[in-house]
């Protein structure tokens, strides 16, 4: 009889001990919990340590963005790109003139007069290796990685999965038909059209 009662007591007491631990964990569920509930909360994107003071440098790894109103078509970013993922095509236009037909502004926000109309500015983000090399030589600072030091210009964007590979090619040039571009260009058959 005594052994029977002791068995019952042992089972109850060990159960209570175990359940106490379980309940303690349940009450303190957020204490020492490292998991991030991703879509609701996320880590701030860390900036890259490039070994020296980086206040003036654009050092974050995210999607590339181009402010087309500031781009002068100097091709420096295209030349410096180690994987050739930037493709630029330009046409000569009158220097400093606004051409609203093709969305071309004559003067950049830095005051540079633009002499080239960009008919194509494609960045294939599937080929990009996020090295930031294109952002340094840009004289107008119009190509940059989103977020980080540039978060006032463009919010951070590094989660842009797509169902189709072609959607990952970002076309920044303003939409314009061939006739509009033809009309806008000042060089025709090797001769200047007006002036």
């Amino acid at each position, binding site marked *: 009889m005594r052994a029977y009662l002791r068995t019952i007591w042992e089972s109850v007491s060990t159960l209570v001990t175990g359940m106490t631990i379980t309940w303690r964990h349940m009450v303190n569920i957020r204490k020492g919990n490292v998991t991030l509930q991703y879509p609701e909360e996320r880590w701030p994107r860390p900036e890259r340590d490039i070994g020296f003071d980086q206040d003036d440098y654009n050092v974050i790894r995210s999607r590339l963005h181009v402010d087309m109103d500031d781009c002068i078509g100097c091709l420096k970013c295209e030349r410096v790109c180690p994987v050739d993922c930037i493709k630029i095509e330009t046409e000569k236009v009158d220097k400093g003139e606004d051409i609203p037909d093709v969305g071309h502004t004559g003067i950049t926000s830095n005051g540079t007069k633009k002499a080239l109309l960009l008919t194509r500015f494609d960045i294939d983000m*599937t080929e990009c290796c996020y090295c930031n090399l294109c952002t340094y030589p840009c004289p107008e600072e119009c190509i940059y990685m989103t977020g980080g030091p540039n978060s006032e210009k463009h919010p951070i964007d590094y989660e842009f999965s797509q169902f189709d590979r072609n959607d990952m090619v970002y076309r920044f040039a303003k939409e314009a038909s061939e006739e509009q571009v033809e009309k806008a260009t000042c060089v025709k058959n090797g001769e200047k059209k007006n002036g």
Partner: protein
Amino acid sequence: MGLLEHKFQDNVVVASMDKLLGWARSTSPWFFQFGLACCAIEMMATAASRHDLMRIGMIPRSSPRQADVMIVAGTVTMKMALRVKKLYEQMANPKYVISMGSCATSGGPYWQYGYHVLKGVDLVVPVDVYVPGCPPRPEALIEGLLKLQEKIQAERPLTKKTA
């Protein structure tokens, strides 16, 4: 599943069964770990406790027979492409492929002069979601997986396909 697939007219029972199947498939897509390069490190970090893929029902499996999703993480070389294809064919239906990172999606930095790199894993297996990044952060990968879950949920496996 294969016998019943796309064999039923659209009605209340089939539609609700479709929804149930979509929910069941999308909430437990066990993934086949296919780490080929540096992207594998980020994939490990995604499955570890900080980002915890178990929250969305994903458990890493080492065998293609037990997996629903193949995450191709890293540079697919010509030699490896044959194995990718073979392992994809060993997976049971329904199967999905995520192309993680620049290299798997288009060859990445090797897209131009890489004599040994496959220019995109979609040349050998059908890819459902492309995750950008070099390598992608765990957040970017989870975003791609959530996108894949939406895609699986929208599927109608039983209903006869119209059009």
